[in-house]
């Protein structure tokens, strides 16, 4: 998919992204994730097994608490995810997502992700007669409630990374600093964006997306070309740290079916 697949390393982009997300998780985090979340599940498990043993994570529709991922499965509602430390009824998780003091990390994504980190899984074009109807917003409106939003996307291209979402499903920094501070939301907003090409965060003044690092084998120009808005770039741009053999060994033991490789 990118040069990172072959020339620059023997890991897949999904594996690299999981390792990159894991590095942002803290020992005192309680993370929650939803639809098609195999990648953040692996990131959380990897963090638990390495740098953040105190982390808790709640996975998807099964609401499994610390699923063992033996092995990783692609669907967030899979019966296999119930091999876990424990599990909650989904309704309990949805209930507590309404509080700002339970979950500190929420993984998000979208058909569209914009310059201020707003996410859209609903529709492209006019909502009432869309040119592309997506599946729907599920839990993304809760992004306004959680501490740190970590966005992940396997589709870094101009259709996905747009200046402004056509439908605001998951709030990021809204229209920018003024609107964001006026809203006075409980959550801290989007903290990080990890894609198939690069890692990005948000400029503290403009609250616009800014390049943190490009993945091995990817150039800054490639990332700019694949982004539908002006990405903030500070020279020099470092290269994302590649997974270590130890990290890869853990990821592959969890993902014996190669779910992250196939993505």
């Amino acid at each position: 998919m990118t040069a990172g697949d072959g020339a620059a390393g023997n890991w897949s982009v999904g594996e690299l992204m999981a390792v990159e997300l894991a590095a942002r998780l803290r020992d005192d985090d309680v993370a929650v994730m939803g639809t098609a979340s195999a990648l953040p599940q692996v990131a959380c498990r990897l963090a638990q097994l390495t740098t953040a043993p105190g982390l808790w994570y709640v996975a998807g529709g099964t609401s499994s608490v610390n699923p063992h991922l033996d092995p990783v499965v692609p669907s967030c509602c899979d019966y296999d995810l119930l091999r876990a430390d424990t599990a909650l009824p989904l309704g309990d998780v949805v209930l507590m997502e309404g509080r700002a003091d339970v979950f500190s990390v929420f993984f998000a994504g979208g058909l569209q992700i914009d310059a201020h980190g707003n996410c859209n899984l609903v529709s492209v074009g006019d909502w009432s007669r869309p040119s592309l109807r997506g599946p729907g917003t599920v839990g993304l409106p809760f992004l306004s409630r959680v501490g740190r939003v970590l966005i992940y996307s396997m589709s870094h291209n101009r259709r996905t990374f747009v200046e402004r979402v056509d439908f605001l499903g998951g709030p990021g920094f809204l229209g920018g600093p003024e609107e964001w501070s006026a809203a006075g939301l409980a959550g801290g907003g989007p903290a990080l964006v990890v894609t198939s090409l690069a890692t990005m965060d948000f400029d503290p003044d403009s609250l616009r997306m800014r390049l943190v690092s490009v993945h091995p084998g990817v150039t800054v120009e490639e990332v700019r070309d694949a982004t539908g808005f002006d990405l903030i770039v500070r020279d020099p741009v470092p290269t994302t740290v590649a997974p270590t053999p130890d990290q890869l060994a853990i990821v592959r033991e969890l993902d014996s079916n190669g779910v992250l490789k196939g993505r």
Partner: protein
Amino acid sequence: MSKVVSLESAVERFVPDGVGLLAVGGMHLHNNAMALVREVIRQHRRVRRLLTSPCGALNADLLIGAGLVDEIATSYVGFEHLGLAPCFRRAVESGSIRVLECDEAYITHGLYAGAGGLPYVPLPVGLEISDVSKVNPEYYRMVEDPFTGARVLSGAPLRPDVALLHALQADERGNAVIAGAHFVDRSMALAAKTVLVQVEEVVGFGEIARHAPGTTIPGFLVQAVIEAPGGCHPTASHGAYRYDEEHLMTYLARARDATGVASYIEELVTGQSEDGYRAATAGRVGALRYAPAAAAASATPGEATRR
């Protein structure tokens, strides 16, 4: 008196043509009550409004593909990692279905409100930011919080006229046990006026009592139990078998246009009885069964409680 009835008579008796609000349980590719859904299509029952769990899949897409659904209230219809929902997508893009856009919190709490007779349910501050409530004024309204005076988002109660659910087992009195994750299926059972439960197996009275409280649907909420082994196929039945990815991929390919989904429905749904479907798919379902050890090892909430 036994609540166990045939699939045909359950739909004939309890799903009126033009049903006002029909809820379909299960979530993503799991526990979709497909035997019931297929029978609704065979009997050509029109659905004025369809309600999914936070994430509908084939249950919703097939009903839409059959041309039976006027409106849908949902927060997601799709096939998760396998792809977008072709019939839902086509219907919305062409304007042939009306969408009542929802989010997961509203569906969950709205069913709770429906189950409890709450006149409406206030929603967490911050949910009013998304566009969801703005495009669905029928279900979402801003109200004044009587305690603080703040303007807060609220949702209307959801009371399905009929809920089509799947459970692993039930007894003849309608007591049912859901294996694995419950999603919002128990809330649907609590909120709906009529509950139809398809099960892998009807068990003797008293068997369900061996399961932990909280994992079950009590029979007094249930109008009909339908024995439909393999009846979630091609979706998964928690505790019984996995989803049939190959069949689902075939569906996604065939449903890409209206002619294709019509031929799928004619061949696999209306062209045969559910017994025929079961016979044709029994081999595939058998191959997808969980090994007994995997089933026993699961930490369902109910089992955790029991320990």
